[in-house]
């Protein structure tokens, strides 16, 4: 757990986290993580969320009538293009 001196270092570490994680660096290797249980738990949670995101949202079937709307819109566009071309 962080002591008073550690709080500053938690703030600094957490301010660097977006860049640290986003750059692909090994945030677990940061010296602060080795000594701070709170930041270690935070990092573990964020990694768990990112990992879980890859399993999220199964592929969903669109409603069947959607294709009819699309083909109808395509027809309309083609008719418009055709009438423009004939002018």
């Amino acid at each position, binding site marked *: *757990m962080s002591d008073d001196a550690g*709080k500053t270092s*938690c*703030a*600094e570490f*957490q*301010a660097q*986290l*977006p*860049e640290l*994680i*986003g*750059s692909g660096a090994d945030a677990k290797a940061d010296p602060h993580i080795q000594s701070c*249980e*709170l*930041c*270690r*738990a*935070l990092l*573990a*949670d*964020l990694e*768990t*969320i*990112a990992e*879980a*995101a*890859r*399993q*999220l*949202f*199964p*592929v*969903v*079937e*669109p*409603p*069947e*009538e*959607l*294709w*009819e*709307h*699309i*083909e*109808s*819109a*395509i*027809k309309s*566009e083609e008719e418009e293009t055709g009438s423009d071309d004939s002018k």
Partner: protein
Amino acid sequence: MPRSRLTSPTPEITPNVLDETTPAPAQPAKRVTFARAAPPDPAEADALTRAQAGDHHAFAHLYSLHKRRIYSLCLRMVGNIAEAEDLTQEAFLQLHRKISTFRGDSAFSTWLHRLAVNVVLMQLRKKGLSLTSLDEAMEPTPEEGPGRSFGAADLNLSGAIDRLALERAVADLPAGYRLIFILHDVEGYEHNEIASMLECSIGNSKSQLHKARLRLRDALRAESTKEARP
């Protein structure tokens, strides 16, 4: 480039073609399997060539191959079924207009995916999700600043995330956070690609993703605390 999840779904029955206009009954969106890594359809290249030459049947076949992935992408990004349907329609209309410009520099599925992302982004911008709002979302609020307390370690989530709870939490994110979280963590785009698409800095993208994950962590912890109550 998006990660390897972005491959074609399993081929399906060709939908109604242009001269078959019998209306189908309205049906709610239904969940199907996790089919992100199906092998590419060998007939796709042929359908693509024919669709580029104006063959409607071939275009219908391409729709059948890609409709689920594009619709699912739109649904994830906007979190609303009606909007996702409109955006899917717009994406395939754009595909129809632009299909002749596809030159095969990337996989067709990747090209179409990016086209659909751009359609969604354009719509979100029309609705007011501007770079300004993204930047504003970046400003730390008192509860999100670096000095924030993250609570006791025994509340950590590791290994215990309920998928449906996480999906709900993602749906509840503010639009800007959700967008970057979906693009990066779910769809697999890199920060430089997201920055280019959203016209923001790479640092913004990283920071906003981080805040999105923090919000999700809070939501999931609140949920688990709620469930733990008698």
